[in-house]
Every structure is written in structure tokens, then in C-alpha cells.
């Protein structure tokens, strides 16, 4: 039994909560100054655990940069009670065997839900469908399919994939990047790339695929999810599609809500990410799109990399940034502190809506009696300074190192268990101590 007193819900109401047997046993109104029993929620916000639909866990294959366990710890530290493991591991998650392996590793870590994403094509090769049915019917019950890292560039394969997943009520999550327009591309194509002489990754390479896939989705009446939208034009296309009732959803990453391409100026590969950081104008359009709900959710694209993949010259460095442990704070900074969104909106974009899109039934639920107890407690008025050496991730490639950010997560309850208490993970595993 976990008791929690005087916490505020995102709608502003004050509550005392009792949790037992993995569910919310009771929830009653609080004066805000009730006698504290259990966890003191005074001044803090209680909301459903965050849900990430875009996480790179690196296991199997690159366990030196992240494992399912360290990724789970990183997730909990960032307030996530569910994450979705992208398929671009080695071997690729393109068979029932691999997705079940990841699913089991998630269960054995046991501190948040780990849902594997299945590859769309075999080995992410782009030209032959993976065994989507077998992955959907495996114990991992895969519903999201993505070749992320690669774009499903062939329009016919994309069409087939969109059609094929309808049997399983699946969804294709597209990494929108026209490959021919981005050969050896290094950063956003524009004023900065022209000056510093790095090969450009033009916005149109993203937008052309978004436009094509929206039309394909409409044609075959399926479901499409656009990963990490980064351009103002992309937001416009998705707005257009939604106005026409096409079943498209979209995500934006925290880093694309905050950082711009002029940071690349000094060639520090910590800012190398795919899709690339864009311009101020794009950032503003993304924020607006997220506030309006044109972009449905925030997803981290958490991409751990070992030190040597970033400690080199720009062109040799790997693409990707850590995201799980700073996501909530970056969204508070960019969306709530700017008054573009309320805490209710934030909870919708980071928990409720992603759980709906993916069909994670125990996640992103309203805080009512009988609901599964996946909850986090956040102090909205406290702030913290990101330190790459103190993250739970196995890697250190955060672009937010030394940045002071708002919002401190104090407690995380997963499936009725207190997995973070007063800012510390409660389940200390052997692997953590090495």
C-alpha cells in the first residue's frame, strides 16, 4: 500500500491517493494541508506516468551504449512508465524471436513497460516486408512498426505496409527522409550549412515523404504516425491531413522544440542528430503545432551513443542525442513556461495521447479509482542542472549538459510499485554498481 497526500492533479484539484495491488484504490479530495500520510505531495503535481513511443535501447547489439535495463532506469529517472524500443538493433527487431527477447528483457528489468517496435522491412532493407503478423501475434503483441533510422522510401513497399498492418490494427511510424535528397547529409540545409560548409539535409526531404505518405494513408485507409517532425512545412502538411480526416498522428522531440541549427556552428557532434536541428522559425512552428494538437505527442528519440562516436570530428560522429531524462523538463520550459500549453495539455501530449496511439491500455489513464497505478509526482517549481555524468543512461550524449531546466520528478509509481522515491531509483541493480 502506497499513500500519497495533498498532491495536485493537472486540472488543479487537490487529492489524497491510496494505491494497492497495482491500482488506485481510493482517491479523495484534500484541503492541500491534510495530515501527511505516506508521500508528501504538497506543492507537487500528480499525473499519469509518461509514455515514450520512440526510444533507442541498443540491446541487442550495442550493449556498451545502452541496455534494456539501463534504458529503463533512464526512463524512470525521466518520469516514464512506458517506453517503446525502436527496431534498429543488431540483430534488427524484425522477427517474433527478437521482439520477444526485448519484451522479456523489459519484464526482467521490471521498472517500466518496454514495448518493442517491429521493423517494417527485413533488416530495415527497405524492399521486403518483415514478418509483421508474427510480431503482432507474439507475446510482445507489437502494434507499432517502423524502420526508424531509415525511411521506408519505396512508395510501393510503404503502401503495402500501410495496408498489411490493418489486420492487426497496427500503425506505421515513418522516419520521413527522402534518401536521394539526403545522401551524406550532415545538418539542416540553409544559411548555417552554407556558411560552415556541411552538406545540407533540406526540409523538403522530410516534407516530400510526409506528403506522399499522407496521401497513401488516405488511399488505403490505414494509420500513419510521423516520427520526429522537424519542419514548419511538415506541420502544415499534417494540419492539412487532419482537416481532411486522414488517420495521421505525429510526434516532435524535445530537442527540436528547443535547439536550432546555429548550435552546429562550432562543429560539436553533440548537436548532430537525425533529422537535424532546424531554424528558429521551424522551432516556433513545432511549438505551435504541438500546442494545437496538430502534432499529437512528444517522443524522445532517445539515442544513446558511446563516447568515441561523439568524440571526433563532425562528419565521423554518430547521429543522435539522449532524451528520456530531460524530456519532461524541456517540454515544461518550451511549452508550459511559455504559456503555449497547460499542464493538462502536457499530460495529454506526453502520456495520454501516446498511450492511445500505441494502444498501451495500462498507461496514460485518468487518475480515478480502479485505474492502473502508473503515476509520477513532479515539483513544477523546482529546477535542476543537467549533468551528463549523473544520468542513468549508459551514455552521456545529452545536448543539455549544464543547462538549468524546470521541473523535478520526485516519485515514480509503476504498476503500483514505487520505483523512484524522493528522486532516487528504489530498485538498485547489480549492473548499476559497476
Amino acid at each position, binding site marked *: 500500500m502506497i499513500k500519497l497526500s495533498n498532491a495536485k492533479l493537472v486540472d488543479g484539484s487537490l487529492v489524497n491517493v491510496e494505491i494497492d495491488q497495482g491500482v488506485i484504490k481510493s482517491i479523495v479530495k484534500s484541503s492541500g494541508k491534510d495530515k501527511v500520510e505516506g508521500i508528501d505531495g504538497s506543492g507537487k503535481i500528480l499525473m499519469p506516468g509518461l509514455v515514450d513511443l520512440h526510444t533507442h535501447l541498443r540491446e541487442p547489439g550495442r550493449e556498451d551504449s545502452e541496455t534494456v535495463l539501463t534504458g529503463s532506469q533512464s526512463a524512470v529517472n525521466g518520469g516514464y512508465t512506458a517506453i517503446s524500443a525502436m527496431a534498429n538493433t543488431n540483430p534488427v527487431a524484425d522477427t517474433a524471436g527478437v521482439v520477444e527477447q526485448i519484451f522479456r528483457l523489459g519484464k526482467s528489468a521490471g521498472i517500466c513497460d518496454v514495448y518493442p517496435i517491429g521493423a517494417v522491412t527485413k533488416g530495415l532493407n527497405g524492399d521486403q516486408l518483415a514478418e509483421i503478423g508474427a510480431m503482432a501475434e507474439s507475446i510482445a503483441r507489437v502494434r507499432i512498426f517502423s524502420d526508424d533510422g531509415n525511411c521506408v522510401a519505396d512508395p510501393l513497399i510503404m503502401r503495402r505496409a500501410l495496408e498489411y498492418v490493418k489486420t492487426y490494427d497496427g500503425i506505421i511510424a515513418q522516419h520521413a527522409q527522402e534518401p536521394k535528397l539526403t545522401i551524406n547529409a550532415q545538418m539542416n540545409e540553409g544559411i548555417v550549412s552554407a*556558411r560552415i560548409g556541411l552538406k545540407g539535409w533540406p526540409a523538403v526531404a522530410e516534407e516530400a515523404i510526409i506528403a506522399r505518405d499522407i496521401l497513401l494513408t488516405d488511399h488505403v485507409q490505414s494509420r500513419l504516425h510521423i516520427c520526429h517532425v522537424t519542419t514548419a512545412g511538415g506541420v502544415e502538411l499534417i494540419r492539412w491531413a487532419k482537416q481532411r480526416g486522414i488517420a495521421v498522428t505525429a510526434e516532435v522531440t524535445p530537442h527540436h522544440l528547443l535547439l536550432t541549427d546555429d548550435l552546429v556552428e562550432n562543429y560539436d557532434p553533440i548537436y548532430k542528430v537525425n533529422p537535424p536541428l532546424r531554424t528558429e522559425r521551424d522551432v516556433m512552428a513545432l511549438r505551435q503545432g504541438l500546442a494545437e494538437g496538430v502534432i499529437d505527442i512528444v517522443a524522445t528519440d532517445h539515442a544513446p551513443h558511446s563516447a568515441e562516436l561523439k568524440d571526433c570530428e563532425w562528419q565521423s560522429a554518430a547521429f543522435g542525442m539522449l532524451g528520456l531524462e530531460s524530456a519532461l523538463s524541456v517540454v515544461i520550459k518550451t511549452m508550459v513556461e511559455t504559456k503555449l500549453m497547460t499542464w493538462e495539455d502536457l499530460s495529454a501530449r506526453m502520456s495520454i495521447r501516446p498511450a492511445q496511439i500505441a494502444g498501451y491500455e495500462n498507461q496514460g489513464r485518468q487518475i480515478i479509482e480502479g485505474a492502473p497505478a502508473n503515476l509520477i509526482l513532479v515539483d513544477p517549481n523546482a529546477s535542476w542542472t543537467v549533468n551528463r555524468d549523473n544520468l542513468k543512461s549508459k551514455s552521456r550524449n545529452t545536448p543539455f549538459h549544464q543547462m538549468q531546466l524546470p521541473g523535478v520528478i520526485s516519485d515514480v509509481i509503476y504498476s503500483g510499485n514505487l520505483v523512484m522515491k524522493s528522486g532516487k531509483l528504489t530498485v538498485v541493480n547489480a549492473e548499476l554498481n559497476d
Partner: protein
Amino acid sequence: MKSAHLLSAEDLSKDDALKLLATAKELATITDGPNKKLPTLRGKTVVNLFFEDSTRTRISFETAAKRLSADVINFSAKGSSVSKGESLKDTAQTLQAMGADAVVIRHGSSGAAQRLADSKWIQATVINAGDGTHEHPTQALLDAFTIKQHLRANESDLSGLKVLIVGDILHSRVARSNVILLNKLGARVTLVAPPTLLPVGVEKWPVEISYDLDKELPQCDVVMMLRIQQERMADSFFPTEREYSRGYGLNSYRLAQLQKSAIVMHPGPMNRGLEISADSADDVKSVIIDQVKNGVAIRMAVLYQLLGGAPIGARND
């Protein structure tokens, strides 16, 4: 100079640049005399770290360093078996251990020189001898020196001159450095190229843009032809070499359109018959040989100033 390194033409104020040109002129006069060597950098070690082949640039730096009595180590890292990423760091740490005072780096990746300077891998002064498609600041300095020598010998800067830079601007580190430096020195720059070879974003550069070489030639004082890589054709930047040459090559007909005083430049190595015809390269208007000669003087001036010939403030980062 306020910077401890020379990574970009942006590191130089107008005064810094003019001072370097003056120093180069002085050093050239001395080394043209009977005693070619100066003792200035005795005991200093200059490493030429070349990840790309460029015999010309390496020899130019080597000659410059030796004329100032520095010890020179040539380190050709090309074809090294280490992965590309690790090798820059590993090599830098090796050079640090060897006590390098200056590292002259040529690298295929834009920003490699800056990474070397910003990283904690090495403490030496870093001189960018060409990084990817970014910059080649000593080339711009020697070009400015050559222009001044021929057209503004007795003036303080390059005010009033119109310079055409013609060809593959998109991939050219020479063009980027020249645009920055020539502007600082008061010249007006016009870039002439097919639109495929101009970067998106070029509209923010302090230049004029033209697709029509013939229209620009009669009004310019300097025409700088850039090397065109053969492989650009395969990537469809232009249809054929012949068509490129017809539109943007310098030939005797075009040479005749130039003002009498105008000069022709090329950073080398030339593709004779492609961007420049043999007779244009060898014409009296051509100052290409002077560019090579001035390269040594400019690099002497840069080494001299960065390695102790003049007071240098600390870098602010």
C-alpha cells in the same frame, strides 16, 4: 590577432589581415635576399598534419616554417588503418606528446581544424590548411596579398575592386574564405556559377550572384577561377564538361573581354581545358605563379604571428 589559432578568415579583423599582408611583404623581401633563413622560430616544432593529399599546400607550409628555422614534422595520416573518427583524436594526442607548437591541418571534414582547436586533445596552435568544404584561410590571405601586389600596391586596402569567383562555390573552401576576407578588405565579390554549384543559403553572403560569366567579365578587376572536380558531372551538377566549359570556362575569347589591368587567378591545381584554357593560364594577365610564390610568404607571416612574432591574446573560450 585576438585568436590563438587560424581556423577561419573570420578569426581575422581587417587590421589583423592587413598586418599579416604587411608582415608577409617584409618577410618576402628578406627571404628574397642572400640569406633565406630567419632564426625567428628556432626551437619551435611545426607539424604538417595532412589527412588529404595536397603536396602543394604542404610544401608551401613546410618551406615557410623552415625559412623561419622551425623544426618541421610531416605527418601524413591518409590511409591510416584506424577508423576515421578515432584517428584525429589519437593523432592529436600523439602530436601533443611530441611537443608540437603548431599543427597545420588539412582534413576532408569541414570543422576538423576547429574540433582540433576546441578539443582538449592538444594544446598547440592550430592552423587550418583546408577543412572539407569549409575554409582555407591562408589561401584567401595569399590571394588578397597577390591582388594587392598587382592592383593596390600603394593603397591601404582593396577598396573599389570587383572580384569574380567563378565555378564550384558549393564545394569550395577557397571561395568561402575569400568571400569573408575580400569583403573585410573592401573588395566587392561576385560569385559566378551555375545554380547547382551555389549553396542554398548563399543569399545571406555579402556577395552578388550571377549565372552569366560573359556579362560580368568586362567590369571586373580580378577573375578567380575555381577548380572543378570531374566527379561533379557524375552527380549531375552539370550535364557535360563541354557544357560547363562553354558556360563558365575561361578561354582566350573571354580573356579578351577583360579590362586591360584585370588579373586572372586560380588556387590550383588547374584542370587546363576545363575551367581554364591553357593559353588563359599562361597569359600575361595570369598571376597564378605569383599566388604560389606568395603562399610561402603568407604562411611565414601566419606562423610568425601565431608562434611568437607578435603578442597574442588568449582565446576567449
